[in-house]
């Protein structure tokens, strides 16, 4: 854990910014997360330490985006590369947050941090210098779809931070893509703030190459009447954690989450979500699907917290898991913590393999077992894939996933 050693000895950062100082200070007293805590107890220790073994990448080699050229209408930004943007159109404007605004907002976020829960963010903000932080302020209507890329280059640890401030009555489609090159570590922290009546259709697609690692932390603050829709997909990382923290600051907001993770070989991918209702009439509909094959390990832990103030909350969470191999394992733990009494909350979890009766039915119609499995898997994933917005259609994600078997 090279990074941690350097961090402890204060050797890592030459001229730390104010934010870096605050975070470094917090980390130095307590540099690693508590391995026994619920958030970290299942995390593979050697994989985690491998994440921290790379040295910090202070350069920023250019990224070849392996995607079809975007149509004119889409805004494409690459964190650390072309972060300069100032668009003022008739209907909308997208501009960078000033350094002051950014500092103020991040500092406010840090004040809410829990050392253990936000460890990934603390690490990210400690290591990240200004040029790898993208902060945007968006307002208006009829905004073109936005694509934002983060990437990690081989043999290094890379940190990227994204802050988006969505002003009142504004709605956007945002696709965030995290790419890990061979033998790399990517720390991505994202902070989204949805003002009243705003809405985001947010897609997060993360995939890596051999021996790539990812710590992906997403913090969402939702104000009244906002709507946050998240469709996510994580695959092909040797080690990946996707941590989602969503807070409905005064309730009366809508959240839909559809996530999916696929693990093969000896990969470990985990998803942690924490949903905090801090006011009445909140709504959550969440489904997380995972598929574990070979010797891999898929983890889901979701918690829904409904305090007394959150009357009339309507929350449901479902964890569905497919276990396809004798050596793979799946852990799931959907949990509810409820104090308000007038609420509708439910959760469910299933772990199974592909449905045998469905397979048999298809086979009696002459469809071969591999084809039938593929059909079934594609329907299993379709629900999630179709929820990821913007240009995903151009990628044939699903075919890509299914044909890599």
């Amino acid at each position: 854990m090279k990074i941690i050693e350097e961090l402890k000895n204060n050797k890592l950062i030459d001229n730390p910014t104010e934010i870096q100082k605050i975070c470094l200070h917090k980390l130095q007293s307590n540099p690693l997360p508590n391995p026994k805590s619920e958030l970290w107890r299942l995390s593979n220790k050697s994989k985690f330490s491998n994440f921290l073994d790379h040295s910090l990448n202070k350069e920023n080699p250019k990224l070849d985006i392996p995607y079809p050229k975007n149509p004119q209408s889409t805004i494409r930004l690459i964190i650390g590369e072309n972060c300069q943007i100032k668009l003022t159109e008739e209907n909308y404007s997208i501009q960078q947050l000033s350094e002051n605004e950014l500092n103020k907002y991040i500092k406010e976020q840090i004040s809410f941090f829990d050392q253990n829960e936000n460890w990934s963010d603390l690490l990210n903000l400690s290591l990240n210098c200004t040029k790898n932080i993208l902060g945007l302020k968006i307002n208006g209507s009829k905004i073109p779809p936005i694509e934002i890329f983060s990437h990690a280059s081989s043999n290094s640890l890379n940190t990227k931070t994204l802050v988006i401030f969505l002003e009142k009555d504004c709605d956007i489609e945002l696709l965030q893509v995290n790419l890990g090159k061979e033998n790399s570590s990517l720390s991505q922290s994202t902070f989204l703030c949805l003002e009243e009546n705003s809405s985001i259709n947010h897609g997060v697609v993360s995939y890596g190459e051999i021996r790539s690692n990812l710590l992906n932390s997403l913090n969402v603050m939702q104000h009244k009447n906002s709507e946050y829709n998240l469709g996510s997909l994580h695959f092909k990382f040797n080690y990946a954690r996707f941590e989602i923290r969503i807070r409905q600051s005064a309730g009366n907001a809508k959240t839909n989450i559809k996530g999916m993770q696929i693990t093969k070989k000896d990969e470990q991918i985990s998803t942690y979500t924490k949903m905090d209702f801090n006011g009445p009439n909140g709504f959550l509909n969440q489904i997380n699907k995972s598929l574990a094959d070979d010797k891999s390990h898929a983890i889901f832990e979701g918690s829904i917290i409904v305090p007394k103030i959150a009357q009339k909350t309507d929350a449901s969470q479902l964890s569905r898991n497919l276990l396809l191999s004798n050596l793979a394992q799946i852990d799931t733990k959907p949990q509810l913590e409820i104090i308000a009494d007038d609420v509708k909350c439910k959760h469910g979890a299933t772990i199974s393999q592909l449905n045998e009766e469905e397979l048999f039915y298809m086979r009696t119609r002459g469809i071969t077992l591999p084809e039938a499995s593929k059909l079934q898997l594609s329907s299993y994933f379709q629900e999630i894939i179709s929820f990821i917005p913007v240009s995903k259609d151009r990628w044939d994600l699903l075919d890509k996933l299914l044909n890599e078997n």
Partner: protein
Amino acid sequence: MQSKMKESDPILEVENLFASTDNLPILKGVSLTVYPGEIHAIMGRNGCGKSTLSKIIAGHPSYNITNGDIKFSGENINSLEPEERAQSGIFLGFQYPIEIPGVSNLEFLRVSTNARRKFLKKEELDTFDFEELVKEKLELVKMDHAFLTRSVNQGFSGGEKKRNEILQMALLEPKIAILDETDSGLDIDALRIVASGIKKISNAQTGIILITHYQRLLDEIEPNYVHVMADGQIIKTGRSELALELEKKGYEWTDNFIK
């Protein structure tokens, strides 16, 4: 007429079949031979093994054949996969057709039709040609085109599911069709549609096994033979009059035949 049929080789021969699931014996020596052009009815109480027999002929992985043989066109098929049986022309109409959320009915029908066509060395159909074929077959079961865009059987009513089964039968053009309680849950109009569909699809080269509780399907499609099953065996075989007698006297009557 009967003797003329027997001149050709049988389509299906079930010979002294014993089968079990989870070590529980279900079939205890079933024998049955079906020649081209024949319609057989198998009747019996719930749990007598008639549904199990149909699943075993189709190759359901949960059942083990412990003794006996199933031959299709003279070849032993005991160890064939379900899809191999289907491709070679065995069709099972399910009592409870399975819902497969997310898989489009049209895609499902096209993939299965092409699997059968490939076996028959017929040209596989692209989406366009397949649509043409399906349109024609939809007529047979009086189904609306809208069914094709929905997920397989999902949200279908009981009658719609059964018609979807007959549609599949029409597309796959099987040599033998085993229809497991295709009449259950159908009102009289739906029953007529299904029955006329079955009659149009079958011909002098195909065999049909109807598994049913009731006479009413047999009023629409007259069987050549009626078999009564109890406790994993065929305990009585007769002509279509047997079904009428059974309807009159009830299944208690058949208890007398149990060996």
